[in-house]
């Protein structure tokens, strides 16, 4: 990996769910976890991918005609790309008039990303927001993030790291000095459940978490720490799980934690799975009811986590 460029799969401007205030969220590609509910499935693989958008496709088949390797074939279910034959040359992407065939990833230089960040500077100021590095797992590209955050800090822009926690310790060490806020995912305290739903145990995640907390204490740094727990029906969104996380956080960390967000499940990513040609087991799952979300919040409070630091965020079902 060239340290002066990064691989991203998206940039969202004006986000309000990825840290304090209004932010620009940069989605870095590549993630060591494989959560069953993953909302950014195109962010898991580090490498390039081509995907096909059935909603944009006008059926002109110029993609098929342009492919020298005959990797693109249509059938009644849509356009398929044979991963064995595809060499990611992009001729189908260039041929497509409708932007239905497109690359998932794009390389960005540091300057280009800084320019994207600066576009929204006035909004960071009025909303007390800034930039969030998300993903994927941004720490997969920690060398770049470290430089990126360093530059942003020099420009006086607030930085937030949205991490799943699974990364080498040195990755955190490289990024934390330039980070104002860590958004740390804690999905399960139970390592077996963690392994089951995300594909990896949480030993390293928990270790890194205590390191981050200790870093904040030792350096006496003004590091905001937000815990985020996705509320996934049938897996994380149980009273037992939330209660267990609450006990864990309350026991040793509650003074160091600034906020714990319970992020309600949404199904906005359903089309992403279609575009990738993948099945998603949460496809038909409805949004959460406000009452159910609040019940989990109550569970968190009952197990000792301070209520004033607790928040339910995300979409809810309006009945």
């Amino acid at each position, binding site marked *: 990996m060239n340290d002066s460029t990064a691989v991203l799969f998206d940039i*969202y*401007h*004006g986000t*309000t*769910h990825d840290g304090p*205030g*209004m932010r620009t969220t940069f989605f870095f590609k590549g993630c060591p976890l494989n959560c069953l509910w993953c909302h950014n499935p195109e962010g898991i693989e580090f490498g390039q991918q081509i995907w096909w958008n059935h909603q944009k496709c*006008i059926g*002109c088949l*110029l993609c098929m005609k342009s492919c020298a390797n005959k990797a693109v074939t249509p059938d009644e279910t849509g356009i398929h790309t044979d991963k064995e034959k595809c060499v990611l040359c992009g001729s189908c992407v260039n041929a497509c*008039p*409708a*932007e239905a065939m497109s690359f998932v990833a794009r390389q960005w230089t540091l300057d280009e990303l800084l320019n994207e960040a600066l*576009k*929204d500077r*006035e*909004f960071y*100021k*009025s*909303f007390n927001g800034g930039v969030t590095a998300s993903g994927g797992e941004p720490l997969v590209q920690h060398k770049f993030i470290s430089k990126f955050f360093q530059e942003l800090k020099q420009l006086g822009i607030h930085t937030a790291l949205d991490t799943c926690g699974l990364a080498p310790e040195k990755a955190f060490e490289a990024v934390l000095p330039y980070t104002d806020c860590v958004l740390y995912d804690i999905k399960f305290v139970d390592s077996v459940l963690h392994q089951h739903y995300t594909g990896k145990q949480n030993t390293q995640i928990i270790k890194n978490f205590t390191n981050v907390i200790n870093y904040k204490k030792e350096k006496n740094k003004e590091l905001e720490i937000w815990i985020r727990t996705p509320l996934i029906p049938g897996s994380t969104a149980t009273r037992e799980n939330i209660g267990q996380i609450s006990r864990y956080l309350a026991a040793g960390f509650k003074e160091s934690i600034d906020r714990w967000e319970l992020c*309600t499940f949404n199904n*906005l990513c359903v089309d992403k799975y279609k575009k990738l040609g993948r099945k998603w087991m949460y496809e038909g799952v409805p949004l959460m009811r406000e009452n159910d979300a609040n019940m989990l919040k109550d569970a968190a409070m009952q197990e000792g986590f301070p209520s004033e630091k607790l*928040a*339910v*965020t*995300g*979409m*809810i079902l*309006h*009945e």
Partner: protein
Amino acid sequence: MSKLKLETKQRFEINSRLQKLITRSRELAVSGKRNLYTADEMQIAYHWSDKGHAIAPQSGEWVQREDRLSLGDHACRVDIGIDFPKLNEIPSRIDGYKADAESWGRDFAFLLEHSPAEIHPYESIVGEFHWEMNEIRKYDFGPEVRELGKKARQAGAGGTSHGHTCPDFSIGITQGWGGILERINKNLAKYERLINPNKVTYLKGAKHVCEAIIKYIMNYAEKAFELASGEKDEEQKALYKRIGECCKNIAVNPPSTFYEGVQWIQFAVMTDRMVGHGNGYGRIDQYLYPLYKNDIENGRLTREEARIYLVEMFLKLRGQFFCLGGRKRDGSDATNEVSWVVMEAYDMIDDYNNLGVMWHEDMDKEFYAYVCDVLVRHGAGVPSLVNYDLIVDSELRSGVSEDDAWNVAYSGCQWYCIPGKEYCDQDTNAVVMLDPFNRAIDRAIKENFTDFEQLYDCVIEEFKRTCEVLCEFKDAQYNMLPKVWPEVVTSLNCHGTIERGLDMTDARGVDYQYTSTNILGIPNVADSLYAIKKLVYEQKMYTLKEVRDAVANDWRGNEVMRIRFLNQDKYGNDLDTVDSLYVRLTDSIAEVMDNLRNNRGQQYRASLFQFQGHTCVNTFGATPDGRYASEPLAHGCNPTAGRNKKGLVSTANSLAKAHNFKFIGGSLQIELQPKFFDGKENIWQYVRDFSLAYFRKGGMQINLNIIDLNLLKDAIEHPERPEYQNIIIKITGYTARFICLDRIFQEEFVGRQNYDG
């Protein structure tokens, strides 16, 4: 089920008397009695139509009733569905029509004389009318102007002149109609002595008008006393008596209390609207404040009483354009307690309103927080948020003196005005940018342009040609205007008109007489030019002739090509590639306008707004931005609906890139679904912080609706359902009850689905 609107709690209690007035006002609106009409799509697009022999754009009365299009419950008058009963006895029909202010004033006096004083039970603020001047008096500029109008239309421009300015009510509210009349008499005598027949004729007209207004208000006083004498209920009797005393005083004298002040405004606006135009009425918190302060200090008034008087006035006037905030002459914040009370009055009743708040860095933070809170809770685009310092700059750039510019008032959809000192055709002229653009394409093909720069220069050259034809037409109109349609009523509350013996429409009648022109379709032309630049001139994938032919055919048989054009970068996504072309185009437009003079020697000014022209589907052909002829154009400086895909912040960034101070208005129009705010804490703070950033970046105005457009679609088919009766939206620059709009406007509105969560 998602929500049509955000749920809001009632802030202020409404007593039973007020509830009766609200119910009546809503019944009038829902039954179509407050509708304002426009002629046809040509009128909307070009602000000038061939239909009919004359123009009465505000009432649309000269069009067959079934042909006219409803702009919503926008009218000040109550339409009782019958013509003015004394139509055949109008002085100009009996004694002969003369194109001068005296003849005009006589007709106006006759209209007032035969407009009955109407006082309804429970009211404390009174006044209603049914007929407007443009229905009873010929409004015809003659064959020469008509011919030039056709020529302008063919070149892609049009326009008319009818009000759309802002009187200065601080004049009348301190001098009273009697004081104004005294000044008329004094100057009339002066010009008689100096033998200046033109000025004498004008001032005689002004005298007719002013005396008629005094008499009209006296009629209300008499009517109120008459009702009082026959009334058994003591409370109602007292109310009638109070109305009588108030009208009796303010017919001649300046108002002495806040109550009288509000009633004075009610009559001043009504008589102004009886002329039939679209004026704004200025900085109400400034000119009402002395009366408010005096009453409060003397214990004659409570804040709640003041609020209720304003509520009553809003219900009757259909929330004409008033503005709040801004700065004082010394640069300090002008926000005062009346600013609050006016805002609270809207908050109390919701309903139809067109307030604007002029924000600046030094504005009372608590007040601006309340403003954003009100805007969010009602979700109806009220108030419009306006960047005061930027509109001051825009006025300064035109040449308005520093001494006047601070007093600027947001006065209509996107425009603003120096009260009592401007007659600038705000919002009444139009250039349809597609016309010069299409001519440039034809020329580029015929003359074999080999690079994009040639095409760009040609677009500007053709735009200039359109403007020159418009200029010729407007000059001819201006020559006729003070004779055919003097703004005598508005001129009574202007600076210098009476002393000069000149109507505000006459050359030098007021100090500032720029010509403002709305430019329709700038984003479409910018997007089209960008797509042509990429696909024709850079990638050479298509020839310009192929593009013209495909567009002329509404892209039939060329879907792949259309999709390619559609998928080029589009304005509104904060992409410098195409946004820079938009900025360049707007700069070029400003430059052309800067160099154009009207026959008053004052310059033209472009506006990045056109109030409804974009809705005229099938009036314009398809465009090389991938747009079908059946799709609406971009509204003003906003991206075409559906083309901005990167969210609200990116769209705002795109709009803010233009040098907005070079233009006379341009509003960012935002429709948000209630679910946009799911999980966001303190919605009002979101709106406040967003507006602050946008304004600091050089944005001019924000109109924000919070409504579920998908659910609102049902109201088109089922306007009778109770849940839709009071759904009010900021359609473009003005608000309207959704069910009162013509279908073409409703369909365009629900199609604005631009921002998700």
